[in-house]
């Protein structure tokens, strides 16, 4: 029926993917992010030529190093699409604009570059809002171009007009309305600079149709320079020194990393710090992979579905070193019981993240990577002799907590969702890029897949938007063609952007979707079970399509497993195929995610089973 062939041997192509990936993320990307400029040589090229706004757009995109655009056309952007073939830029046509943004988001996270989208005005633009909000909450650098009606019609309720600058103001780092061709070059330059520098984030550029058609003289603008905007990368030396002194004195330190560790490429420095001071490490959902998931000092994730040991360690520690994390309520639980005995050091590039939710003893505004480098260097002057000896009782205590309540589940005759995730981990040797939908699937992916390196776990953290995983898998696979990409999905979420299977098939992107099919909106059902006396209102999803047939209808491959024995063969087969595959795992219906901290409780008060 299908002529999908087996994949090329995963080992080699994966290694290539890795090499590129590492270089981009650890060196180039953090550098280019800091300088605020792509690979271009600004200032001289093409002086004196007259070009249309659309051409100018692409000239700057090329100069910014853009290779791929995720998008969806329409009347307002038809001139832009018309110009696109003259430039060597790949366009991936998604089936929904929301998916284009999620794909660009994941592309950015796995390539280290700025993700780029192009959509039309009105409905095209409004369809991007969820994707933009998700990228905003997770600080992902994106530039989203939206079409706009001709500038003369703005404000007239013209056909497909919408004030997208107004709509996206609270969920973008910044946004622009471009009404004249003469403003295109400089604005696009600024948009990329803003998206990638400082605390990264999405920038919307709304392009009026006449600004794209109009012709003006084009000079490639120099690096962006903006009066009111100058991110601070270098930490205050005195503060770093204070941090080093606190660290040397502490008996029970814990390091708590967030997405900022990954965004700034600081995972090597984080590891150095942890080992140097023998401190256990936990991260947020967004920070997973920022510290090796197989390391001795690894506590696994903290917070609402964090491990017992991570949450207990936070509760008992005398020093908490927060790095690139924003102390979100899903992480802290009840604020007054969060790290109640600890002095807190908080490193973040964004001053608004510091002191927002918890009082901090040593605030350090700066880039995580640079700050950790300086901190590590400064610690060399502190007395760290016997530090691992001194902290032995603390590590013993943590080991005891781990043994009291390890992450575990009990097998039964039905497939356990955790078992599926474990098998995926095993069979991909921990080397896959995992994207997730939202809900239980996301939490099990976080708990049972162990991430040893950054940029391999791609999830909608801050916004938690269902429908993220499949488009994200598409974005990740375009960035890393050699790597295995698996979307760990719920049967509810996958139906929010299932149409993107067509995108995967059309673009020959062999993404794998593992649906943990419990026939429920599982995470909400879990809350109903635990806190609403099992009144399951509006969470039954058993009226669903046959996912195997659905995959086939799209030209992908579909497989199903209904018993634990079938799990491994299905995953093996899926990984061998060079094709998009849906794996429908019919799992235990009423399984819950544990540990769980009830909303508003202290994180030490976990439900363990």
């Amino acid at each position, binding site marked *: 029926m299908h002529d999908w062939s087996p994949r090329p041997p995963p080992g080699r192509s994966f290694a290539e993917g890795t090499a590129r990936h590492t270089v981009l993320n650890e060196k180039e990307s953090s550098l280019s992010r800091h300088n605020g400029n792509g690979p271009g040589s600004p200032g001289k090229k093409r002086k004196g030529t007259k070009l249309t706004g659309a051409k100018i757009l692409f000239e700057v995109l090329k100069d910014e190093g853009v290779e791929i655009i995720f998008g969806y056309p329409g009347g307002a952007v038809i001139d832009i699409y018309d110009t696109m073939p003259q430039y060597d830029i790949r366009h991936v046509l998604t089936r929904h604009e929301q998916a284009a943004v999620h794909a660009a988001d994941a592309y950015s996270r796995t390539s280290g570059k700025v993700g780029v989208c192009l959509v039309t005005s009105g409905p095209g633009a409004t369809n991007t809002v969820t994707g933009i909000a998700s990228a905003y909450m997770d600080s992902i650098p994106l530039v989203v171009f939206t079409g706009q009606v001709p500038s003369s019609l703005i404000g007239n309720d013209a056909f497909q007009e919408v004030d997208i*600058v*107004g709509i996206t*103001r*609270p969920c973008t*780092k*910044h946004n622009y*309305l471009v009404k004249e061709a003469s403003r295109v070059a400089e604005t696009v330059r600024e948009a990329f600079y*803003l998206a990638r520098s400082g605390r990264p984030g999405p920038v919307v550029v709304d392009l009026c149709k006449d600004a794209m058609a109009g012709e003006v003289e084009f000079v490639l603008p120099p690096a962006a320079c*903006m*009066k*009111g*905007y100058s991110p601070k990368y270098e930490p205050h030396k005195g503060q770093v020194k204070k941090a080093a002194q606190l660290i040397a004195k502490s008996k029970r330190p814990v390091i708590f990393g967030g997405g900022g560790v990954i965004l700034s490429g600081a995972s090597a420095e984080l590891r150095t710090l942890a080992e140097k001071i023998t401190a256990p490490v936990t991260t947020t959902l967004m920070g997973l992979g920022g510290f090796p998931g197989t390391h001795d000092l690894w506590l696994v994730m903290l917070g609402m579905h964090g491990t017992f040991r991570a949450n207990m360690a936070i509760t008992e520690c005398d020093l908490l070193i927060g790095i690139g994390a924003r102390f979100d309520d899903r992480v802290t639980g009840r604020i007054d019981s969060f790290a109640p005995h600890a002095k807190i050091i908080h490193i973040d590039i*964004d*001053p*608004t993240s510091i*002191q*927002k939710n918890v009082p901090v003893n040593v605030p350090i505004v700066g880039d995580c990577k640079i700050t950790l480098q300086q901190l590590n260097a400064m610690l060399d002057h502190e007395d760290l002799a016997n530090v691992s000896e001194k902290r032995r009782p603390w590590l013993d205590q943590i080991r005891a907590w781990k043994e009291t309540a390890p992450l575990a589940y009990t097998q039964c005759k039905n497939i356990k969702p955790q078992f599926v995730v474990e098998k995926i981990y095993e069979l991909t040797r921990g080397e896959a890029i995992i994207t997730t939908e939202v809900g239980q699937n996301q939490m099990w992916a976080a708990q049972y897949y162990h991430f040893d390196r950054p940029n391999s776990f791609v999830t909608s953290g801050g916004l938690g938007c269902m429908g993220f995983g499949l488009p994200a898998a598409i974005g990740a696979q375009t960035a890393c063609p050699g790597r295995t990409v698996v979307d760990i999905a719920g049967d509810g979420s996958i139906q929010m952007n299932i149409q993107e299977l067509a995108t995967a098939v059309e673009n020959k992107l062999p993404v794998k979707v593992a649906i943990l099919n419990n026939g429920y909106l599982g995470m909400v059902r879990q809350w109903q079970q635990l806190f609403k006396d099992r009144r399951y209102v509006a969470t039954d999803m058993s009226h669903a399509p046959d996912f195997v047939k659905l995959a086939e209808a799209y030209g992908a491959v579909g497989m199903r497993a209904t018993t634990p024995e079938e799990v491994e063969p299905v995953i093996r087969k899926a990984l061998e195929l060079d094709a998009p595959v849906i794996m429908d795992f019919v799992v235990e219906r009423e399984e819950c995610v544990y540990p769980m901290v009830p909303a508003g409780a202290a994180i030490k008060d976990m439900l363990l089973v």
Partner: protein
Amino acid sequence: MNQEERHTISILVDNEPGVLSRVAGLFSGRGFNIASLNVAETLESELSRITLVSYGVAQIQEQINKQLRKLVNVVKVTDFSDSDCVEREMALVKVQSDAEHRAEVLRIADIFRCKVVDVSPNDYTIEVTGNRGKIEALIDLLRPVGSLEIARTGVIAMARSKKGTKK
């Protein structure tokens, strides 16, 4: 619970469409009311100054000040809460002035150093500037006179001495 404090904040911004809405959005997004708002060009036509008064608990006010600084179009933020500043606002007050009240209105206007800027057979329009207290006091005194109409500007503020916002 923390006490709500009054904050007068002076914000130097790019003089561009949409900037005011970005600033105001930071308050509305947190469910904060803006008590008074004033915007006008500065000596440099590409910059505007927003003077804004709001009430809130200290910790959220600190957040807002930081968030304001983060806005790309914001060049400088000064919170006058902890420093000594001069605050002024202006009001135009239209007040009934029939034969019975005319003398009384003029007397009050004189005490408050107001200017009468418009006269008609039935009413006076008087202009008053000063800090909030002075304007409130004037209004209180005029209220018994009868049918009152008022237009007030928001607060504008400037630091005393050399400290504070330049430009």
